[in-house]
């Protein structure tokens, strides 16, 4: 298997029902980004997801937004979503308090192909909120740390205050032998780390091109430069995976909004092997 697919339903099913779920904790990661920990209640018995999949989260009367799952897929009964407050629905989600109920549909889409990386080096490159859908990959790999060789995480944030999961980043580096390199676009007086776009971090690592799998998630421009950099370092295109974002209303391929050339990001993606969409990446206003 080269590509983890959604929990492929045995028989055609309806667009997945909306379930009320309870928020059990709100963690503000940065000024504008927060994590909702969700108690799945009865739904927890049947809810399974793959790292890289997303849910549609509903705020009563306000609407739905597609949000990737950022928690450990091996945990049952609970989920986390890390959300960047930017639009109407995510601003509504930002007002949710502990004990409040939101709606959830999912999980949807294709996930990261973790099995494809076993026995290999893994190079994860994340920009901004793009780290959120990759955190479940880290959890999955660290649970079987010895099944993977080097794990490299290159992460770019806007500023030191915008760095997500700071405590975990340190823990992954110190306790799990993960090569974590973080850079920021703009430093501040306390920042002693790297400054610059995330691709500058490639100059501080050496990749074994023949044995490395790349997972990339972030703004499209950042992903394009990252792919170029990986290409220059000899990574084969079919070893590179990226997660795409588009407007989504239905999440099941009916509403048409997420079309990306011939692909529906919601059901064919959001995670794609690079060769499948390579020819689309340079098309403006696609």
């Amino acid at each position, binding site marked *: 298997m080269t590509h983890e697919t*959604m929990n*492929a*339903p045995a028989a*055609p*099913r*309806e*667009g*997945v*029902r*909306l379930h*009320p779920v*309870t928020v059990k904790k709100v963690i503000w990661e940065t000024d504008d980004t927060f994590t909702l920990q969700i108690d799945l209640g009865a739904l927890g018995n049947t809810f399974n997801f793959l790292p890289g999949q997303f849910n549609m989260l*509903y705020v*009563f*009367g*306000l*609407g*739905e937004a597609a949000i990737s799952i950022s928690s450990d897929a091996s945990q049952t009964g609970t989920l986390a979503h890390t959300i*960047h407050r*930017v*639009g109407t629905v995510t601003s509504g989600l930002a007002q949710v308090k502990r*004990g*409040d*109920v939101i*709606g959830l549909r999912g999980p949807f889409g294709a996930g990261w192909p973790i099995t494809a990386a076993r026995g290999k080096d893994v190079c994860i490159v994340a920009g901004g909120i793009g780290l959120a859908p990759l955190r479940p990959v880290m959890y999955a790999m660290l649970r079987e740390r010895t099944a993977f060789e080097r794990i490299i995480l290159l992460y770019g944030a806007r500023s030191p205050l915008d760095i997500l999961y700071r405590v975990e980043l340190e823990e992954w580096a110190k306790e799990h032998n993960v090569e974590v390199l973080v850079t920021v676009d703009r430093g501040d007086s306390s920042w002693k780390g790297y400054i610059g776009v995330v691709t500058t971090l490639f100059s501080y690592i050496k990749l074994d091109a023949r044995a490395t799998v790349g997972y990339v998630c972030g*703004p499209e421009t950042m992903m394009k430069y990252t792919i170029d950099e990986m290409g220059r370092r000899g990574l084969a295109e079919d070893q590179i995976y990226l997660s795409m*974002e*588009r*407007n989504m*209303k*239905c999440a*099941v*391929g*009916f*509403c*048409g*909004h997420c*079309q990306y*050339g*011939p692909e*529906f990001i919601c*059901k064919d993606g959001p995670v794609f092997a690079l060769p499948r969409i390579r020819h689309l990446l340079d*098309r*403006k*206003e*696609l």
Partner: protein
Amino acid sequence: MVIIESTELNHLLEGLISRGYLLVGPTVRSGAIVYDEIRSAEDLPRGVGDEQLPARYSLRRRDDAMFFGYGVGPVSWKKFLYPPRLTMFRATKAGKGFTITPGETEPRPRTAFVGVRPCELNGIIMQDKVFLGGPYVDGAYKKARDNAFIVAVNCTESGANCFCASMGTGPGVTKGFDIALTEVLQGKRHYFTAEAGTSLGKEVLGALSTREATDPEAKAGLDAVARAGTSQVKRMDVRDLPQLLNDNFENPRWDDVAKRCLACTNCTMVCPTCFCSTVEDSTDLTGTHAERTRKWDSCFTMDFTKVAGGNIRPSTRARYRQWLTHKLSNWMNQFGTLGCVGCGRCITWCPSGIDLTAEVDAIRGNGVHA
């Protein structure tokens, strides 16, 4: 193949009503032939024809008494299978949480679609692939589809915007109908040839007082349908069409068409295969009741591709290109056919008279070829 005399057409409709079907068919309303509820053959647009050109539609009085002597109007059958507005669910606050109830509570009536043209039947088959053919199924569509009885009517005349012959979707039906009719009017002889496509169609026909068609009667119908095809002037050049559009993502013709396109969404609303939708969430004044409504949407609207970083397709150029490329190229990747049935509605109802067959010809003329 059997014969239904024109004077007996109403018996077919009565037969369907007596079996519990609601009848939907062509009828004249506000200067156009639309599909709406009908009660008898009296409601059909008998003796009414139409003139269609790019950006032009008008009705005319025919000099005969044809029941189905018109081309397709602004309404397509998707209105009944995939309604323009649909309440998806209702939610009611309860303590800190809320409860959810389904939006559709009334059972859908069994509906007979009377007068489905071959191009339109192909449009329905294309939407079946979208809503029923993948890992997910649209429940409301499935219910409406399962409850639909299709009386197709073959075309014996082509309008100026028709190009079904080149799309392989008409002017005669080949599949997907319960009953298919061909209307024949020769001097004073006015009759329908009828054939059943399903056992249910056979049963409905069998209950009528029909007789087997004679060879000349059958041939007259087949000839009329064949003439509608050969007389068709507009055509789509479909050779390597998916590849052509894929190869011409950058082409000066997109700039040209963008000067004419108003991004008004008319083409997508009248198109029998366009399936895009959006949702609208709302609450009542008390804030305790909410509902979600699905509405037809169009890839021509600005908000269609809105993401946190902005709109993916801000230009009309990109939006027209998306629409045409989806229909005539990406659709093939997604559903295994082209997404156009050649009904010509998008040409007729475009306020600028943009003709997609001409746009394809222009791209073929100046474009990159594989």
